[in-house]
């Protein structure tokens, strides 16, 4: 075999790699027919490959996936935050509220200023709003920094901020009645709307 040219062995490897040219393949075949040493060499190479290929498939040990997941760095990412946003829209709304709206908040916070929703048949007496007996107010009433006395009927919701709400035996309110006295409650009232807006925002 020592007398055989090196290129014959190169051709064997080309052949085994499956990228031998026709010409080389022919030369290899011709040589193998006359040279038992090279035939032997070729056999050994084929056997070697068969030997390695007979290696059993090996699978990862149990719980491999779980172990990898445990080794990953802690989740600290946008989706985590987004998930949290979705779960706590009111808190986020509050944060945003305080951060960006504080100026507006302060100016709109119910101080001494009295206000009431304009409805045609309401009587305003100083800081007291009266729904007169026999009258039907169609729509919501919001009173800030004043009291509301209901003697007649309100076809809608009633909200009194920083004041009291008094019902006579004759009064009828078809909607919800809310009294908001505390600062926190007032914020809450405002924020719920924002929270809903935020929810909508994140749910795209």
């Amino acid at each position, binding site marked *: 075999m020592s007398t055989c040219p090196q290129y014959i062995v*190169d051709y064997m*490897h080309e052949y*085994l*790699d499956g990228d031998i040219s026709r010409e080389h393949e022919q030369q290899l075949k011709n040589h193998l027919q006359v040279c038992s040493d090279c035939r032997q*060499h070729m056999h*050994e*190479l084929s*056997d*070697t*490959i068969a*030997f*390695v*290929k*007979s*290696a*059993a*498939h*090996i*699978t*990862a*040990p149990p719980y*491999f*996936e779980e*172990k*990898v*997941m445990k*080794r*990953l*760095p802690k*989740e600290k*990412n*946008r*989706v*985590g935050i*987004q998930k949290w946003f979705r779960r706590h829209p009111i808190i986020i709304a509050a944060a945003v509220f305080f951060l960006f709206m504080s100026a507006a908040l302060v100016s709109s916070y119910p101080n001494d200023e009295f206000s009431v929703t304009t409805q045609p048949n309401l009587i305003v007496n100083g800081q007291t709003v009266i729904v007169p007996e026999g009258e039907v107010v169609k729509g919501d009433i919001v009173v800030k920094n004043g009291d509301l006395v209901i003697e007649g009927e309100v076809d809608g919701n009633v909200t009194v901020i920083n004041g009291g709400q008094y019902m006579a035996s004759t009064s009828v309110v078809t909607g919800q009645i809310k009294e908001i006295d505390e600062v926190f409650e007032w914020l809450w009232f405002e924020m719920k709307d924002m929270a809903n807006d935020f929810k909508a925002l994140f749910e795209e």
Partner: protein
Amino acid sequence: MDALVNKRIKQVLKGDQSAFSDIVNLYQHKLYQICYRMLGNQQEAEDISQEAFVRAYINLHTFDQKRKFSTWLYRIGTNLCIDRIRKKKPDYYLDAEVAGTDGLNMYSQIASKEQLPEETVQQLELQDRIQYEIGRLPDKYRSVIVLKYIEELSLQEISEILDMPLGTVKTRIHRGREALRKQLSNL
């Protein structure tokens, strides 16, 4: 499968860590097998292949999704294996083995390049013998032989995984085959 993998990758990149478990699930056996064949030791193979997944996760933003994910992952894995082999102290196995011999085959209890007496080699079971012969190959041949004949990857993929020219891969495979042939014919 590539489409699914890319979908999961996008989810992970958006911050959904749990989407990574599907990726681990898909590639765990192949990657573990490469590491086991390279290192010849179960504990080390598990540690290194897990580490490869962790690194893939951390560096996922650098992965080009137009390419094949397995190539990128195996590259991380083989690099870690090669590093481990180079850093390995000769007595590593003796220390590691004390922790628990459960599930260790005969081969994994011997240092990777230690030559066994011929008589002992003849008594090895076929599978242990295969691993023993692979382990005796020099690292640079071992990696190409494992990727070519155990993972059955194309020469082009191997060239990408090992980041070396196709010509070098071919040369190493040729030499690896010759080295194995000699190991087997000497007996």
